[in-house]
């Protein structure tokens, strides 16, 4: 029996070790010795090759098959689950059945589509990697090592690099996707979190949870050029299509700060108070909006509601009751349905956009963090 337990431990440890947790320097890097201590280098050349082969294969297939049947028009909904270490894939056409659980590295959180939605990137905080998922096969095909505890990230506009906020190191890392190299680390205030990137890709915005600021970063030079004081514990961004306004959710002051991008200052503050709740319950985090930019949707965290906001007037038009600690929000491609990930009730609320009511809740994994909908 002892032997079996030992084996089991070994196996468990082995599972974790199998994740690319490697942060050691390669011999080559040591030769250069730049005095920069946190530059992790490419380590899995084999994985890299596979990545490229698959990428090329996908592109070739894309040319051959005009429809790319298996990856397109699925409308699949992806939900990352922090504590079950997987992504639930729901098919709205099959009554929101979970058609696949994608096992990921530990603690998957923020997700982004890449390569015209052929790839799904997911930041896995406890294994210090961003997993790469092939949307066609719904499998993790590669891992990109990051600094400790990645949560939120953005793709550069040319999709060659990832910007990853690193709460532990108080930096934003720029990571080359192809080479899996941390190209650069941009120092920020303590606990950087939310990231936004301007349409031209030249300006990066980062929230600092502890110093209550938004850092404005010149993406080319990699330097902070301005700091904007916002509400208490700023979390996430919403860049409006006009490009003039950048919204920031402030978790503790329970507001959204609207930043005038030309002046780099807060022009308006939006307050929330759903019926039956108090100001302290309002902890806005996730945000999304309709494609026309007219309606923004703000998840109010512990107030268990999402708010619909008219982006012109900044008036709250409606509050919709969802699950417990609503954070992640996403719209379906036809914008008829809103998906809300409820971190403390372990479910996904399905909200009908026309009637602005939650029509049902679908159980997912433990502590759902982010939600994305495929077209």
């Amino acid at each position: 029996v002892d032997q079996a337990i030992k084996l089991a431990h070994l196996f468990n440890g082995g599972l974790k070790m199998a994740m690319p947790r490697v942060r050691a320097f390669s011999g080559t890097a040591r030769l250069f010795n730049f005095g920069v201590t946190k530059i992790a280098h490419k380590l899995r050349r084999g994985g890299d090759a596979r990545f490229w082969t698959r990428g090329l294969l996908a592109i070739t297939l894309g040319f051959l098959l005009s429809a790319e049947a298996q990856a397109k028009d699925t409308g699949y909904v992806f939900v990352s689950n922090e504590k079950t270490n997987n992504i639930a894939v729901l098919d709205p056409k099959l009554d929101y059945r979970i058609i696949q659980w994608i096992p990921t590295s530990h603690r998957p959180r923020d997700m982004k589509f890449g390569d015209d939605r052929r790839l799904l990137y997911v930041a896995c905080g406890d294994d210090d990697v961003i997993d790469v998922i092939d949307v066609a096969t719904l499998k993790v095909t590669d891992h990109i090592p990051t600094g400790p505890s990645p949560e939120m990230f953005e793709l550069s506009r040319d999709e060659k690099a990832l910007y990853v906020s690193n709460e532990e190191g108080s930096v934003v890392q720029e990571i080359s996707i192809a080479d899996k190299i941390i190209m650069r680390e941009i120092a920020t205030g303590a606990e950087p979190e939310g990231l936004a990137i301007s349409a031209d890709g030249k300006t990066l915005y980062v929230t600092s949870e502890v110093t209550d600021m938004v850092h404005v970063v010149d993406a080319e030079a990699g330097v902070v050029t301005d700091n904007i004081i916002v509400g208490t514990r700023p979390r996430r961004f919403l860049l409006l299509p006009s490009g003039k306004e950048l919204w920031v959710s402030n978790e503790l002051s329970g507001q959204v700060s609207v930043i005038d991008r030309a002046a780099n200052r807060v022009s308006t503050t939006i307050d929330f108070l759903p019926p039956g709740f108090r100001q302290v319950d309002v902890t806005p985090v996730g945000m999304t909006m309709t494609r026309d930019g007219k309606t923004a949707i703000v998840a109010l965290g512990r107030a268990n509601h999402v708010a619909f906001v008219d982006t012109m007037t900044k008036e709250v038009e409606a509050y919709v009751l969802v699950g417990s600690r609503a954070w992640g929000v996403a719209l379906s491609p036809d914008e008829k349905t809103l998906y809300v990930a409820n971190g403390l009730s372990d479910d996904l609320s399905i909200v009908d956009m026309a009637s602005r009511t939650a029509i049902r809740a679908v159980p997912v994994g433990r502590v759902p963090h982010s939600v994305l909908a495929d077209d």
Partner: protein
Amino acid sequence: MIKGWLALAAAALAVRLVISPPAISAAAGSPQASAMKLGYVELADDPRYANRGAHSGIVFTDLGRPYQGSQVALEDAEAIGRVIGVDFSMEKSSAASVDELVQQISDWIAKDGVRFVVADLPAAALTDLARKLADRPVMLFNISAPEDVLRGADCASNVLHIYPSEAMLSDALMQYLVAKGWLQILALQGPAPEDAAMVAALQRSAKKFRAKIVGTRPFLLTNDPRNREQTNIVLMTGDVGYDVVYVADSSGEFGRYVPYETKLPRPVVGSAGLVPTAWSWSWDRDAAVQLQHRYEKISPPRRMNGADWAAWEAVKAVTQAVMRTRSTAFDAVKAFLLSDKLTLDTVKGNPGSFRAWDHQLRAPVLLSTADAVIERAPLPQYLHEINVLDTLGIDAPETACRF
């Protein structure tokens, strides 16, 4: 392979060319930097830290001086200060007596314009210091004394209490016991005045939340067989029925032997077992992990405790007030601290603010075992007409404080 080498070279180049400057530099056109110097005081021979933490060479408590907690927040203050044009800094004094501290703080007030002083002092010393500084333009932050009397009959208008009161800690525990239906409580009380204060707080909480104390039994630290009624845990916990055993043991020497030693198989709470606390290293929600890691980076070989959290929070409170008022003037900063505009990050969920009636910071309390936070108080089933945090501790109608 060649691609890899090229990439490495490219990365090297990128790193060499672009050396990131400090993240936050003063924005162009920001006003002339003003100074905001804070003070930090402690007693060199504070009995709470004497011979604590190690018995027979084994360290078993996390009690230590909380100075490093303030330094974590000072780092953030400095970063914010660079943006708003304020130089935050801190002076520390470890003195032999309260009179020495009075002299030191008076010097700071005169020479450095210090107006806010973080105080890691026992209750009597804090009361003495506050009284002797009553006519000076300075505000003290209590970061380690839980005594209710400091927020009641002995309250001082120049003290803000960050550390939770005995009543808050006791109410937090009682909310949990009542929610569980563990209403019959047997109390074991040590010989120290602090133990008596804990039991008094327990009695108050039991009345407030309608639990029952079925008995209070004194214990002694001795091997004298004639005192076995007060040393033998089985005897102390026999001949009476109860749902839970409460231990009031400020010595830390007795309580840790109570769990699993009781006559009946019942949980132990209070100073041992499930402990109400301002902070636990195992708290992992509300951005707590990042804070602990930043603490551990600069701290002695010890994890963050309640007083560390309070020291951090005190400096954070001043920083918030300066940042939101854009002022370093004493009256403006003080007014903001005492206003309902303060939404202080407690890193425990609910935002904090100071109670007007006794200057106690509203903040959640953690109920923690040796390695897990079991619950966070206030529990959701306890409601309040204004702020649910006021279900913990002394509310406005019952305060004995008169500023």
